[in-house]
């Protein structure tokens, strides 16, 4: 074991998070609360994507809700088709199509719904559709060196277009109510408490896997190029790197992760609606990331949990205060704590942790020659 102190700390903190999510929370929370945590963790997929895209590569996307929503809708379309068998919908004028289509006088399944009969296709689409859209947007924008605030505004506009489109085309998308009344995943009922527990564990394991992947990306040479690009884009360009492709990669990666999060959200919550697509949820997710720390994976996950936990408990007791508190949180974090909670840790606790970890793991270190 000749790992550097930093690596050892990373491993220890990652294990603590894994332990917390896999053992402590399921043991200590009632099923309802645990399901809520599971819901928050689906947002954490978006925030760790934002750590790469915003924290590392410096691309602030205010449209992560697009990708979260697309992933969620892909999953919801599959589940809805499963719930709309010919027997289950025999009272409709056209049996075998989702109920909201029937209400909107649509008599045949639209072509883009048809592939979602297949589970493998849907699971691939959950990642591929958001990633493809992100690659397209990225290709169009980064190639023309559109970045910074312009990019943020355009992603926001796309989020608002998608929301308007989903609400407007209610015959194809379920409109403002979204796709509701989802029942089974390939014959497995997702509404029972047991299923929710299983889904929670699936969510946590997937999140940890995604974190490991992102950790790998960030510690590789690729991660360093992303950092360099954020700080001195022109120098990286003049050093012979194709900045555009790296930006597209970071943005696409974050979109694919958001898609996974959205799909898990649909499974755990049991519906998908345009309220999770638009501008407001997109910016909310950015603030989760900012509170936790845009440069820290663990910080982003803790930030997501913390803000959502605060939101739930405040809005249960005093909803008016909560919106004020959320606004103040935005301003406070930006003004006084640009690095988020993780920068607090870095500034005050890290040196003690370093000593502690060094002392604890000293015996694993080979004697210095």
């Amino acid at each position, binding site marked *: 074991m000749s790992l550097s102190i930093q690596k050892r700390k990373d491993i220890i903190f990652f294990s603590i998070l894994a332990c917390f999510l896999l053992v402590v929370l399921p043991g200590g929370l009632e099923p309802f609360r645990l399901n809520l945590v599971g819901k928050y963790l689906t947002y954490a997929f978006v925030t760790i994507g934002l750590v790469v895209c915003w924290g590392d590569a410096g691309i*602030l996307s*205010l449209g992560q809700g697009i990708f979260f929503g697309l992933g969620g809708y892909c999953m919801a379309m599959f589940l809805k088709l499963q719930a709309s068998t010919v027997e289950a919908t025999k009272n409709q004028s056209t049996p075998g199509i989702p109920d909201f289509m029937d209400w909107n006088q649509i008599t045949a399944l639209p072509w883009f719904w048809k592939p979602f009969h297949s589970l493998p296709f849907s699971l691939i689409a959950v990642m591929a559709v958001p990633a493809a859209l992100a690659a397209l947007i990225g290709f*169009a*924008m980064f190639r*023309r*060196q*559109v970045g*910074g*605030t*312009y990019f*943020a*505004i*355009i992603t*926001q*506009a*796309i989020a*608002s*277009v998608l929301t*308007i*489109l989903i*609400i*407007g085309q209610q015959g194809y998308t379920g409109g403002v109510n979204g796709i509701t009344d989802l029942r089974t995943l390939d014959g497995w009922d997702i509404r029972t408490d047991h299923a929710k527990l299983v889904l929670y564990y699936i969510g946590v394991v997937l999140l940890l896997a995604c974190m490991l992947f992102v950790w790998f990306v960030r510690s590789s040479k690729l991660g360093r190029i992303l950092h360099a690009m954020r700080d001195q884009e022109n120098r990286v360009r003049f050093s012979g790197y194709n900045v555009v492709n790296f930006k597209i990669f970071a943005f696409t990666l974050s979109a694919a992760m958001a898609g996974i999060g959205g799909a898990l959200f649909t499974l755990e919550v049991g519906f998908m609606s345009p309220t999770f697509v638009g*501008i*407001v949820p997109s*910016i909310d997710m*950015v*603030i989760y990331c*900012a509170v936790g720390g845009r440069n820290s994976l663990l910080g982003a996950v803790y930030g997501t949990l913390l803000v959502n936990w605060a939101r739930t408990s405040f809005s249960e007791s005093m909803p*008016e205060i909560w*919106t*004020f508190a*959320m*606004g*103040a*949180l*935005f*301003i406070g*974090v*930006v*003004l006084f704590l*640009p690095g988020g909670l993780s920068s607090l840790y870095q500034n005050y606790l890290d040196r003690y942790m370093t000593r502690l970890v060094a002392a604890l793991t000293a015996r694993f270190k080979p004697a210095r020659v």
Partner: protein
Amino acid sequence: MLWGYSFSDLTSIFVMQSFAGLILFSVFLLMALGLAIVFGQMGVINMAHGEFMILGAYTTYVCSQVFSRWIPTLFGAYFFIAVILAFIVAGAVGMLLEWGLIRFLYRRPLDTLLATWGVSLMLQQLFRSVFGAREVGVQLPDWMMGSFNLNETTQIPVNGVIVVGLTFFITLGIYALLLKSRWGCQVRAVMQNRSMAGAVGINTEWIDRLTFGLGCGVAGVAGAAFTMIGSTSPTAGQQYIVDTFLVVAFGGTQSLGGTIASAFSISQARSILEFFLSGSMAQVIVLLTVIGILMLRPQGLFSMKVRR
């Protein structure tokens, strides 16, 4: 889609729809002018701009209530006083915001965006606590309610004419202020090169504050105009903010004339399409077109050539 209408029907549809588009254009333009000053000239992304508009709208609402209850004799003229008050209130709050928050963030535009989003959340909640979550509408004096009948099928509403006229004068005023006055010259100097402007003796902090206040004040006037065409609710501003940013970006952030041209083309396209398609599809098509053009031409339609 044009079948089934006679020629004269089509003409009056066209005239009335384009006038409806002209009213939408006025509100867009007033919003966008404020944003063009704040975003285009200062480079500050103010996500709370929509809330400043709503602040102006609520000021107008309060004015109409006060006049109808205590000064009913002057009720016919309250709208003009409300416009001035909306400008002052929104401008003052804007200057306060600049002093308390924005001035610390001039070097971090992305962070300004997040912080002002926080401001917009707080303002929305403030409106909700004070005025309630339900929509409120203002009472119009009798003389503003009617419409001019051009012929038996074409009608032009009086309040629309007032809104359009107001927009015309405000635009003219801003144009003169920024491009002809000494103060406007200082503003442009500060925006082009802050340290150089400071070196020749311009009080840059004060210019920043006044410019931001002016942008917010114009948004307040937009809010007063907005009460003529729609009802005011705490979250109404948020629905306009993205459209407005697109208008400013589409016109080229540095150019006032570009802002006017893009507000005109976007609102006209939208209101004419709205008649033939559903409202949401019209909005989607126009937004997508604008996004597409911005992807091809990120600097906007009319951009000044500046060396950066």
